């Protein structure tokens, strides 16, 4: 059993089907008689819809129906409310929330907003008809930048929401922080942007909806990260009971947050499938995904750091304005407010902190969580200001960080932001990262780079983040007579490997053959509740539910074993799949116990056949704090401005590691997305027209194999958290927190002799070249 136990790099169960082309992604499903849908989207950033004429289109070959906002309103379908945990302004009044319908009703507010659904026999016919739908727009002035949107005189996106203001938020002690700044020897200030990016899973979104008129139930197959919450959202839109909508996610080709939210398309498909009495399929194309998948980050921030004469941190003050696009979407307003506030200051000891966040509406695709949702922004803010402080004060940036890290003996500690940091050892993780980074060889590598006309830089970036997402999770196990077990869990993998790691926990705890455990996720009929994935919660909450479930099975299994051996449950010990009576040495296998659980004659009184089948719900009380440290070495070509990230070293404290191979995968994947944001990715809207400039993979750059550095990873496993029974802290979002500041600061280190103090992400060769040129020109 040990081979498949907790802590082992078990090869993945799901790989065989993915490697042989037999996975089932949404576009691989072809129901009989399926019709195809196309979403006609707004071509304007801001315009009134004076009318939509679909007469010609409706009469084109193969067209089965066209749904517009007028039809939608006539059906009295409901808007989708935001679920932002921060939902009140500082003055206590509710956030400004415009109604978000699945279709634009009389005005469009971003390029890509759904205007009509066209259903046809084939995709080509729907595309042809889309050309023939006449939408009469009256263009309005648009604003796509959140800072400009808040300025007086900015175009008003919502008539009844003054100044495009959604809400403001503050956290920390304002007075204490002001006091700290007044008494400071040094105050360092930096304005910076965390640019708008998008998750870009390689599988685009898509869904298939159908309606069974005999049962009155809907069936939705959807490339989503979260079947339960979205089922409730879509049912709410259509005004049907949630139990009338069966929502299933097939194999999902990556999510990273962008497949988490309640999108408009599924409700449209569900409605239309009932209307035409056929299943309807919609698959987003890539170009559509850039316009209509939620975007992430996009914060304009001023961060200020107060230090004493010895370089000790006294206070941190952060003011950020986050773009949330044209609507509140699912949890959009949370990211630049509570989402970025919690982990302010990173792993450093701060006596005082104050955070202010504003969420503003603009004429862009709305923003929702993207891998980290606020924590990468917080991490970038603190690491950039610390690096700048070191530069401006002439202190070694490594030394400045080292002396300000929260000491190991300061834990547990509640930070001024209210984050409960229970376990960890930030100085140890920091030193181990430095040690891995081969600092001794750096001078030679700098010289070698210089000999090639290149500049080499180094930076280290410790990070502290936290988990999130739904606190409750379901796990259930059902046994068969042959000893096999069917595990159902409400959390969800969209590639992270829970089909392997969840059975690992069950196998480890119950001694069941790993290969005899099947796994079901992403199905509202299979689990009564489910939080899907988001906020690095899969192992923390889902894994803990599996462990709790296994523990409950074990109690019953011991009773059965004791009954079979005519002894006491308390004397039963399970090892390698065999229960042994510690007193008599008699033994019975788990396989036999499972078989006995199906025979009434072999069960103790009070137990019935199938007694081992167990359903349980685990609830997290306090979020965990994954933390760690990244360092990066880069080479910059001053002639071209091009950056090459040569090497990254990472030590992560994720608490207990269930499967180190999969955890490494999460780190490297996160680094790639962090590197993408640092160097090349950016969603750009044209300032005047509000048109999306980066609408394809030719305009929006993603990291490729040759973009990546050599990555060396290690885990610090000496500080498991007591916040959950597994001791895990969550691993999914860490890479996005550590990599951007490590890479950006390393580039700035390489350019320190050129006097370049700051470059906004992404650090494209053009921007780096310009920064060098501008610094030279003085």
């Amino acid at each position, binding site marked *: 059993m040990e081979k498949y136990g907790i802590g082992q*790099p078990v*090869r*993945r169960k*799901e*790989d*065989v*089907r*993915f*490697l*042989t*082309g*037999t*996975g*089932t*992604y949404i*576009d*691989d499903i*072809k129901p009989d008689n399926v019709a195809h849908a196309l979403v006609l989207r707004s071509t304007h950033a801001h315009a009134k819809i004076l009318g939509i004429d679909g007469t010609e289109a409706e009469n084109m070959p193969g067209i089965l129906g066209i749904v517009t906002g007028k039809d939608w309103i006539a059906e009295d379908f409901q808007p989708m409310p935001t679920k932002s945990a921060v939902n009140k302004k500082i003055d206590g009044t509710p956030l400004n929330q415009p109604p978000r319908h699945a279709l634009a009703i009389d005005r469009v507010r971003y390029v890509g907003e759904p205007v009509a659904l066209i259903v046809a026999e084939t995709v080509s016919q729907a595309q042809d008809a889309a050309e023939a739908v006449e939408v009469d727009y009256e263009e309005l002035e648009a604003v796509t930048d959140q800072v400009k949107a808040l300025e007086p005189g900015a175009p008003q996106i919502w008539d009844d929401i003054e100044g495009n203001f959604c809400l403001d938020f503050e956290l920390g002690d304002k007075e204490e922080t002001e006091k700290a700044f007044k008494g400071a020897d040094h105050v360092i200030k930096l304005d910076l942007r965390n640019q708008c990016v998008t*998750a*870009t*899973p*390689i*599988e*685009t979104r898509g869904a298939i909806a159908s309606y069974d008129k005999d049962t009155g139930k809907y069936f939705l197959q959807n490339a989503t990260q979260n079947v339960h919450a979205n089922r409730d959202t879509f049912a709410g839109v259509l005004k049907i009971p949630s139990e009338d909508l069966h929502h299933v996610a097939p*194999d*999902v*080709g*990556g999510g*990273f947050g962008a497949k988490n939210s309640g999108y408009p398309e599924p409700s449209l498909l569900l409605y239309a499938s009932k209307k035409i009495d056929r299943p309807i399929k919609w698959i987003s*194309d*890539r*170009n559509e995904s850039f316009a209509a998948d939620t975007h992430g980050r996009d914060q304009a921030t001023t961060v200020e750091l107060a230090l004493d004469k010895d370089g000790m941190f006294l206070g941190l003050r952060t003011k950020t304005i986050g773009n949330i696009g044209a609507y509140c979407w699912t949890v959009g307003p949370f990211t630049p407010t509570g989402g970025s506030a919690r982990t302010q200051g990173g792993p450093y000891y701060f006596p005082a902190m104050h955070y202010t966040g504003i969420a503003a509406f603009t004429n862009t695709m709305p923003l929702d969580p993207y891998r980290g949702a606020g924590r990468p922004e917080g991490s970038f803010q603190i690491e950039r200001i610390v690096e700048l402080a070191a530069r401006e004060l002439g202190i070694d940036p490594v030394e400045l960080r080292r002396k300000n890290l929260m000491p190991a003996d300061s834990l547990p500690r509640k930070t001024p932001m209210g984050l409960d940091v229970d376990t960890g050892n930030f100085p140890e993780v920091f030193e181990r990262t430095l040690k891995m980074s081969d600092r001794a060889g750096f001078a030679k590598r700098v010289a070698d780079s210089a000999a090639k006309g290149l500049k080499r830089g180094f930076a280290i970036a410790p990070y502290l983040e936290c988990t999130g997402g739904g606190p409750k999770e379901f796990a259930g196990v059902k046994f068969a007579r042959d000893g096999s077990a069917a595990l159902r869990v409400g959390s969800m993998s*969209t*590639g*992270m*490997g829970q089909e392997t790691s969840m059975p690992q926990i069950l196998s480890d705890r119950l001694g069941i053959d790993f290969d005899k455990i099947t796994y079901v996720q992403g199905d509202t009929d299979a689990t009564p509740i489910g939080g899907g994935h988001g906020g690095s919660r899969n192992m923390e909450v889902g894994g803990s539910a599996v462990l709790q479930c296994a523990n409950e099975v074990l109690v019953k299994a011991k009773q059965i074993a004791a009954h079979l051996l005519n002894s006491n449950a308390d004397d039963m010990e399970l090892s390698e799949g065999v229960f042994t009576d510690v007193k008599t040495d008699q033994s019975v296998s788990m396989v036999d116990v499972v078989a006995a659980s199906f025979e009434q004659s072999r069960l103790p009184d009070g137990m019935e056949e199938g007694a081992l089948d167990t359903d349980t719900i685990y609830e997290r009380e306090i979020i965990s704090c994954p933390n760690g440290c990244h360092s990066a070495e880069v080479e910059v070509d001053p002639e071209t401005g091009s950056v090459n990230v040569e090497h990254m070293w990472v030590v992560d404290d994720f608490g207990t590691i269930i499967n180190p*191979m*999969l955890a*490494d*995968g999460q780190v*490297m*994947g*996160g*680094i*790639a*997305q962090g590197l993408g944001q640092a160097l090349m990715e950016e969603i750009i809207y044209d300032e005047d027209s509000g048109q999306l400039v980066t609408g*394809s*993979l*030719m305009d929006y750059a*993603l*990291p*490729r*194999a*040759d*973009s*990546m550095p*050599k*990555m060396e990873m290690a885990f610090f496993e000496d500080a498991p958290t007591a916040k959950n029974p597994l001791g895990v802290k969550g691993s999914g979002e860490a*890479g996005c927190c550590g990599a951007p500041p490590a890479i950006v600061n390393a580039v700035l280190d390489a350019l320190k002799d050129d006097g370049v103090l700051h470059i906004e992400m992404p650090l494209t060769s053009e921007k780096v070249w310009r920064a060098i040129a501008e610094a030279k020109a003085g």
Partner: protein
Amino acid sequence: MPVISLSVNGIPVTAEVEPRLLLSSLLRDHLGLTGTHVGCDTSQCGACVVHVDGKPVKSCAMLAAQADGTQITTIEGLAQKGKLHPMQEAFRDNHALQCGFCTPGMVMMSVALATEQPDLDEAAVCKGLEGNLCRCTGYQNIIKAVMAGAKAMRG
């Protein structure tokens, strides 16, 4: 409509195809070989790579009609008699896939690279995979897998 004859994973196929039909659509929609994935509409992502007469081709960038008379191998045709191809095995051993969506194209491209350059080094792998995007793995394990797979293919 043109009628084409070709071999797909060793099986002869004759099909009447619209002139505008893409090879990827022929494979996925007409032949039910859904292992070949489509992740973009500008031939950037590489999820749809198949072998046409042994050469790697983005099947979304080739018309089905152009495949007349060719021998095509898709991801479904790579494993033989239930045994994974050494490159598939190397991807599994090295955790070179997560969501699996880019994987078919990535594996087909890698097999082609290792066939063309049996002794390829890491730089050649990176160059060879520049037309294949992965958003999950950070590529390091893919590069490791291709090196290991190429070695196993050499025997």
